[in-house]
């Protein structure tokens, strides 16, 4: 047990945290059988240590957490991960589920709360969905980072003009506001569009809003 599947950075990893070795073994075997890389942890502390030490890609994968474990419960582990800014989706699996625990877990952003006994397919579906959500979040984040890098590449003047464009001002108005000729504004504007790699005003406004909404 405690098998650590060797992983390339590109493939997502399912982190399985459960104090029951039999569960770890069977889940690991199940995930191996469908080709999902996985790492097993025999308690929450081992997982949290691995997370903090960045022994794996913190952004790519999902977590399957048992609720009732000695020392650090699954819920406590979720709270600690939240404080650490963890963005990996969490799926709880428990043999002792009650409504208040389930509600608490879901309020803190758990994706699923599965009760034992469960069908294997139910777990697989939940994990696949969690990985999909994680993948989409990653893509969105990457896009935002790209936009922010592009924004950082603008000169002060270009940033000024970008802000004016996004605020809906016409070139003529921007020219008067900034004491420039309209021709100069047009040139800056073309540079902004080039650097931001957009072809239309609508596209420009969209990428800027997308990047600022979530940053």
């Amino acid at each position, binding site marked *: 047990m405690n098998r650590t599947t060797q992983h390339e950075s590109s493939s997502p990893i399912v982190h399985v945290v459960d104090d029951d070795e039999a569960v770890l073994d069977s889940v690991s075997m199940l995930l191996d059988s469908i080709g999902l890389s996985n790492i097993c942890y025999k308690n929450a502390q081992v997982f949290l240590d691995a997370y903090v030490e960045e022994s794996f890609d913190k952004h790519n994968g999902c977590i399957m957490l048992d609720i009732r474990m000695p020392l650090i419960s699954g819920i406590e582990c979720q709270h600690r991960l939240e404080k650490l800014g963890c963005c990996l989706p969490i799926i709880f699996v428990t043999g002792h589920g009650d409504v208040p625990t389930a*509600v608490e877990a879901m309020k803190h952003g758990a994706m699923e709360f599965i009760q034992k006994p469960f069908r294997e397919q139910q777990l697989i579906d939940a994990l696949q969905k969690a990985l999909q959500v994680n993948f989409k979040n990653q893509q969105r984040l990457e896009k935002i980072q790209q936009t922010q890098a592009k924004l950082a590449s603008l000169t002060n003047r270009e940033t000024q003009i970008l802000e004016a464009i996004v605020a809906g001002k016409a070139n003529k108005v921007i020219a008067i506001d900034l004491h420039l000729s309209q021709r100069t504004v047009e040139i800056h504007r073309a540079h902004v569009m080039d650097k931001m790699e957009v072809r239309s005003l609508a596209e420009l406004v969209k990428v800027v809003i997308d990047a600022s909404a979530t940053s």
Partner: protein
Amino acid sequence: MSTFEKPIVYLVDDDQRLMESLSAVLRLSGLTVEVFESAEHFLNNKLRTRASCLIVEVNLPNMDGIELLKHINNLGLRLPTIVLSSSGNVSDAVRAMQAKAIDFIEKPFIENTLVKTVLDVIERT
């Protein structure tokens, strides 16, 4: 008109006695309350009006409370919803929270706790 400005809370539950006492407590807190005995009844009457909060029981005849919540979400409406449950079913709780319920409360509950949750919801929106 002062009644026009009072926040509206909708209750959807076929437990009439509970609804009577709960709506009395909510009214005492200065809220306007309207009670519906089924999801269909609610949908046919009030869906497109302004509202502050919906309180709905999971176990209803025909369309259940969580289906109602999903239906409201699908219409693109944002109606903060508290789901009540007389069955204490964990998978109902999970379904309700996945459907973006604000809270999921098992019956019997302390009415004042629920009222506090409702007032919190209204203050936030």
